[in-house]
């Protein structure tokens, strides 16, 4: 392809989250301000310091037949469900080639998770120790490999232009979508299914994150535990699930008459080079990602009406993000309706960027910013217009929205979308 700066649009959305088994029910719950966080009822959770999490609303076993599901890690099951929904939502009726409107050689899949098939890895190690060598599943390797969800989505839709898995902890899902935008923009593909997934509600990851002092231990009030920007916030709440979008060159979408949710303007990426897990407290690393976004794309700061913040409900991170927005956008921040949807979904780690991209795109499409719940006492250092209590209408005309995602390791990824 000679063209290297093609316009990219979003033509399909899909999700399976703690709030609902698809994008529509998730969106409805976000607008209603419902929390997906619950007390964990499993026996293994009884004695843990953290006993809360946001479990998926619809178990994947009720959607994927057992012979297929048993060969997939839970994270791949989530990814497949979200990708199938996005694929159908984009108007495709079969896999590429069988549906003549999409060429498999021009179709990609980019799906990421932060941790990969961690429950498979740990469960199969238990099998090895308790039942012996012969009982370890021959499906273990394709189930635990971090590229498993991407590979399974690629198989499902018939993607031959490239299947990828960028890994950057909690920024993974967003980095996947950014990578997919670039594949189309630079001409490597016409259509890409992209998103993030995570399934790590298992005693080991919960204990490990808990021992880092990164998680809320507010077991007495599960639904109030994830409280971004509130003075009483004390860590994130783990969630599970996946979100996916179908990205497409604007020309390809127009040729097949596809419904377009939004334009995917592009991405800004940076790294903190500060600490392996602590966010850079002044927000300089995040600001660099925002500046890169502005420099590399046609995003107009005056058009940004909404930000789906990373805001995980940790004391340092939430404030650093707002400082970065102010640093780069100055007074333009005053007209940005900032939402922290993790207050409802919990933190889906590598799945967050996928689910929050779906939320950001739907916010533009419906011109409604979802609320941030549990914000009883706004942190005086939270310098921005946080959407509280109920959804806020977004203005008419051309507006843009950002989806921020940051990950352990100092990864900063910002995605930008615009109404069409």
């Amino acid at each position, binding site marked *: 392809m000679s063209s290297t700066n093609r316009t990219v649009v979003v033509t399909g959305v899909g999700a399976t989250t703690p709030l609902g088994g698809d994008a529509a029910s998730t969106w409805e719950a976000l607008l209603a301000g419902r929390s997906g966080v619950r007390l964990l009822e499993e026996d293994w959770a009884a004695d843990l310091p953290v006993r809360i999490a946001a479990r998926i609303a619809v178990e994947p076993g009720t959607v994927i*037949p057992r*012979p297929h599901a048993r*060969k997939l890690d839970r994270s791949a099951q989530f990814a497949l469900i979200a990708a199938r929904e996005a694929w159908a939502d984009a108007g495709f009726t079969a896999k590429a080639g069988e549906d003549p409107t999409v060429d498999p050689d021009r179709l990609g899949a980019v799906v990421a998770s932060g941790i990969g098939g961690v429950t498979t890895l740990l469960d199969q190690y238990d099998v090895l120790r308790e039942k012996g060598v*012969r009982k370890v*599943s*021959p*499906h273990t390797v394709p189930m635990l490999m971090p590229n498993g969800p991407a590979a399974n989505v690629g198989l499902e839709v018939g993607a031959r232009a490239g299947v990828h898995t960028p890994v950057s902890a909690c920024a993974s899902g967003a980095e996947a979508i950014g990578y997919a935008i670039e594949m189309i923009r630079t001409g490597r593909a016409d259509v890409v299914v992209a998103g993030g997934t995570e399934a790590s509600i298992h005693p080991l990851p919960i204990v490990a994150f808990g021992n880092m002092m990164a998680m809320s231990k507010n077991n007495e009030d599960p639904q109030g535990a994830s409280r971004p920007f509130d003075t009483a916030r004390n860590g994130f709440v783990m969630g599970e699930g996946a979100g996916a979008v179908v990205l497409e060159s604007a020309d390809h979408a127009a040729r097949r008459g596809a419904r377009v949710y939004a334009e995917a303007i592009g991405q800004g990426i940076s790294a903190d080079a500060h600490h392996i897990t602590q966010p850079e407290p002044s927000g300089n690393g995040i600001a660099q990602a925002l500046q890169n976004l502005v420099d590399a794309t046609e995003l107009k700061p005056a058009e940004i009406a909404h930000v789906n913040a990373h805001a995980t409900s940790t004391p340092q991170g939430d404030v650093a993000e707002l400082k970065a927005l102010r640093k780069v956008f100055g007074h333009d921040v005053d007209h940005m309706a900032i939402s922290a949807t993790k207050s409802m979904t919990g933190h889906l780690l590598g799945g967050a960027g996928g689910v929050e991209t779906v939320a950001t795109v739907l916010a533009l499409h419906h011109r409604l910013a979802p609320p941030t719940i549990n914000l009883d006492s706004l942190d005086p250092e939270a310098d921005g217009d946080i959407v509280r209590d109920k959804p806020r209408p977004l203005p008419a005309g051309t507006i843009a929205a950002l989806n921020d995602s940051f990950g352990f390791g100092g990864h900063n990824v910002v995605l930008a979308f615009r109404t069409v």
Partner: protein
Amino acid sequence: MAATQEEIVEGLAEIVNEIAGIPTEDVLLEKSFTDDLDVDSLSMVEVVVAAEERFDVKIPDDDVKNLKTVGDAADYILKHQA
């Protein structure tokens, strides 16, 4: 008490149903695991392990590649069961 060929096929049918979701009545002697029953090379390992347990027989890895059909497996088990 050694299993009869009929019992072995019945047992294999239940194993294939569990692993690949194929209805038990479709698991017949002449059916190929890969071509007819949706049992790929990884799932075949599961079938073999389940059959070893059920029929008290050892099926070394080198012999697995010769078990193309349900009939091949049933004959092997009939011959080698303890």
